[in-house]
């Protein structure tokens, strides 16, 4: 049994060190977190792809057709790059909220935004590289 405070801290740290990778694996499975990062020790467990793509649509209200965002200004592009970089490693744990707000600020006529993120992935069954996409919707706050 630990007796001194520092011993307790070491045991608490070791418990965290031991339990976290199991939580990490669950996050990889559920949210698409990269197994390569965040101290889950899953380096080399899955291929990494550099490519990452995004399409953004918006509309004034739910009854209208979605319109594709074209040629966004630099500040929106910068927010998009920042979001995509976080998405690359954190998967769906990285929210597009800030990026969606930047888009809505750029397009005051839109009330809602749909963000579709696409990234390549290796299908473990077929061994083929395929696109994986996820879609999120945000409304003006």
């Amino acid at each position, binding site marked *: 049994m630990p007796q001194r405070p520092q011993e307790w801290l070491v045991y608490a740290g*070791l418990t965290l060190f031991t339990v976290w990778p199991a939580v990490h694996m669950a996050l990889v499975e559920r949210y698409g977190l990269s197994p390569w990062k965040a101290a889950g020790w899953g380096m080399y467990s899955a291929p990494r792809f550099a490519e990452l793509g995004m399409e953004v649509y918006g509309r004034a209200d739910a009854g209208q057709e979605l319109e594709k965002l074209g040629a966004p200004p630099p500040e929106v592009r910068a927010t998009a790059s920042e979001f995509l970089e976080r998405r690359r490693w954190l998967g769906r744990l*990285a929210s597009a909220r800030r990026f969606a707000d930047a888009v809505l600020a750029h397009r005051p006529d839109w009330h809602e935004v749909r963000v579709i993120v696409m990234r390549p992935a290796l299908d473990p069954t077929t061994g083929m590289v395929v696109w994986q996409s996820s879609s999120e919707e945000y409304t003006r706050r």
Partner: protein
Amino acid sequence: MSTPPPLPAAAAPDRAALETPADPSAAADRLRRFELVFLLVVATEYWARALPKWNDLGGFYLGALATATAACVLAGSRPARRPGFALLAATQAAVVWQEFPATGNHAYLELAFCLLALLLDPFAPPPAGAADARLYLRAVRWMVCVVFFYGGVQKLVHGYWWQGQYLAYSLANESFRDLLRFLLPAGEVARLAALTGRVGDGPYLLTTPLARLVSIGVCVAEIALAPLLAWQRTRPVALVAALLFLLAIEIPAREVFFGLVFANAVLLFARTDLHRRFVPAVALLLALLLLVRLGVLPEVVFY
């Protein structure tokens, strides 16, 4: 009701599995060399990252470089060891935070080692020093087992090693290709090497039974290393296997710093003090790497 007979001694659990050497001062000496290697690697890593982009270094990284260098010097000296590790842990935590979520796993491991060294003082007078040395050794060994175990489990769970998909994909990397060439027919190597990793490419599957067996065997071996290192009887063989495994992965991946930090920890499983020989070898290797970064020696890719 009869009670079962006691287990024979040979079958009893090995309680000494994670014990320290009997002599506390010997344990402290090993840990001193462990810390020395650790500090040399971390300090060199900061400089090796900074030198190629010296003219474009941001204020944050310059500050981290200066603080980490000072912290490593302090932590290496007996009187300022703990303040040194406190400063290094703070710097390392700031770098982890700054680079998050792209932070490399070795940075977390380095932070964990810094915190351990900060909390425990194996060089204090007995009995506290001896108790700390024992706990320190056990903690580092436990962390090594955790990394090996989950490294193997993650490979199996994500499904890219059952049919050699990951190995097939990594053939695009020339240094991995050299390692895997002997497992596959020449035509298969050529086919996989020609793939570019773009959407629609594939199939990234290994076709020979031997290659698939090796792929699964890597994961199983990695998982098995954890209990085999913990159990004292199998430890010498497991130690050699662990070091060979590390070399097989880290040489093609060229992850010198993670490799050294982890090998430094793995060596604490040895019965004899292998760190005595490891320190000069690491110091020489790190000096060569710095000379590469300074442009004195020819360019070599390493991370």
